[in-house]
């Protein structure tokens, strides 16, 4: 039971990060039906910029929280600029092109960003300086670190803020109008290009925060970290129903939990030695409490993709979304 709770906590933390990244995917997809492949790289750039700033300030004697805040504050505008540039150069000219065209430029942009980041920050794994004191809390037998609590709190705040933005403000209304029908929204006086650019920029800001969170949580950053994180977050967005803001949050948290629980238990579940007849078939490797584990926790990365494929096959609209599978 302790393990279960612990994995739940870890999964929720991870899922909260996925959710914040997934919001960026889902908002862009909701409005222009584009899978913004470069989004994962924006997260990576956020982590990298924050790393540089935190590294510079770490020795300065500022309080650790302030250092991280300054790092985040620097990462956000950089990510926004990067994302805006990509949208302006690689996506906007292709607004009327066939669907696959912007997807291909997105892949190209993602490769370019990744390798430019490699030029700037080298191909090494960068270790964040350990400035935040490790505080742990005990919660029903599970251990929760301060960083985990902070991540969960920040994610909750971001989600509330974003929901407010989308459903309560003028910009949010323009975004929803553009998502429903760009032409009509344009006729109603909505500056579509501005709204789309704003969507990209907001998503990039969230990505920057997510990048800092991942960096401080795992303590490392590398130029390749964006692609797999981006894919998982996209899977989360699809799970919740792409184009649907609350869906991205639910999908992210759920995917994080599935991944953590899956990684925690798959080894036990697929240990053939636990099943009488199978254990006999396996033979001597089960003797003396031995194990014959088909799939260990090193398959953790598979879960996101399996979830993605299952959702797309059985419920392409996701958990909360409307039916968009045909349009895709």
């Amino acid at each position: 039971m302790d393990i279960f709770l612990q994995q739940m906590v870890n999964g929720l933390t991870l899922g909260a990060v996925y959710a914040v990244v997934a919001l960026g995917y889902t908002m862009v997809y909701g409005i222009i039906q584009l899978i913004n492949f470069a989004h994962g790289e924006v997260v990576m750039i956020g982590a990298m910029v924050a790393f540089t700033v935190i590294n510079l300030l770490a020795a300065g004697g500022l309080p650790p929280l302030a250092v991280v805040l300054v790092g985040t504050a620097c990462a956000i505008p950089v990510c926004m600029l990067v994302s805006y540039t990509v949208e302006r150069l690689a996506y906007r000219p292709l607004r009327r092109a066939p669907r696959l065209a912007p997807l291909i430029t997105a892949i190209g942009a993602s490769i370019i960003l990744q390798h430019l980041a490699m030029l700037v920050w080298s191909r090494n794994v960068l270790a964040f300086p350990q400035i935040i004191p490790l505080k742990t809390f005990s919660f029903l037998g599970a251990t929760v670190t301060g960083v985990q609590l902070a991540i969960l709190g920040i994610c909750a705040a971001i989600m509330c803020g974003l929901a407010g933005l989308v459903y309560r403000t003028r910009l949010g209304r323009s975004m929803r109008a553009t998502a429903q029908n760009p032409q009509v929204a344009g006729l109603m006086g909505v500056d579509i290009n501005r709204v789309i650019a704003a969507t990209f920029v907001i998503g990039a800001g969230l990505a920057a925060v997510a990048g800092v969170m991942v960096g401080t949580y795992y303590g490392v950053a590398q130029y390749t970290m964006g692609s797999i994180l981006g894919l998982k977050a996209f899977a989360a967005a699809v799970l919740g129903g792409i184009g649907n803001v609350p869906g991205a949050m639910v999908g992210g948290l759920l995917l994080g939990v599935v991944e953590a629980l899956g990684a925690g238990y798959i080894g036990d579940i697929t240990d053939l030695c636990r099943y009488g007849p199978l254990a006999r078939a396996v033979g001597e490797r089960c003797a003396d409490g031995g194990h014959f584990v088909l799939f260990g926790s090193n398959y953790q990365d598979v879960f996101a993709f399996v979830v993605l494929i299952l959702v797309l096959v059985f419920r392409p609209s996701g958990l909360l979304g409307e039916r968009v599978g045909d349009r895709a």
Partner: protein
Amino acid sequence: MRRLVDARGNPLLLWAGVAAVAVALIALPFVLSMVGTTWVRIANLAVLYVLLALGLNIVVGFAGLLDLGYIAFYAVGAYAYALLASPHFGLNLPFWIILPIGAAVAALFGVILGAPTLKLRGDYLAIVTLGFGEIVRIFLNNLSQPVNITRGPQGIAQIAPFSIGPLDFSTTDRVLGLTISGPMKYYWLLLAVMVVVVVINLRLQNSRIGRAWEAVREDETAARAMGIDTTSVKLLAFAMGASFGGIAGGMFASIQGFISPESFVLVESIMVVAMVVLGGMGNIWGVILGAVLLSFVPEILRWTVAPLQNALFGKQLVEPEVIRMLLFGLALVLVMLLRPAGLLPSSVRQRELAGEEAR
């Protein structure tokens, strides 16, 4: 090629041209080996990429299904070869048995991927295929436990080279005073396979199946209304594309003598997509051009930019590998922005894009 025949036909001139190209291609390794055997190896890799790009072209170009996990089939073919012809399992079957097996297993994987994803279109399909490619790679990486099948990240070494009777593809021979190295023999074999694949592709394109693919690509609903069994047509595209990838993978395993999951990462899939897109989706000659360009230009850059940087700055500022990747990224973006149908567009695509404006 067809157009050449149809247009102002001078068959004699045409055949003279084909013969000249053939002689040039056959003589190429002699020229390259004068520069260095490395270049023959690079040419071999280029032909392998041509095979891959042609296989992917069936899926992406003909049938219009964007597959971002194509390298998985290459991996399946390569591992099939490596497992059946290496000391790892103590097997050493001849290649003409293994290559068809590899092609068949890859085709099976193509159907496994295709069957559940048939409903999906466009970008969703792209993501699912990408996920599929990653799943295959993760499995290759981890299938060393509990039973050691793939040897995990260590990879499989000492894969047997091709041999036909006394002819061994890994040794250097002297024939009629000419030195024939191993890579050169592979080159000619690859060339022969490539010619066969090109002919198959040309015949496919204008066949009943080829036209069915085109119809599905243009408008699936209309195609179904015309009586095309879209399910089996799309599955066939996946299976055929995959089997070409499997054959290329088997040859790759034998040429390299060593494979590991490192060779089958996502970037490789994207590279093949870049070749198809750059050359011109759906046009066989364009795809070949794209594959050759994106195989050779980075290598040429590697051999020119590195010394240039050393001369100018006294050290390597930008690694050639990075330049290569930046080039791929730029190629994808610029081609889509400036020449969306590719360098050598297929006639259908050209029509389509012209029509796109009016819509």
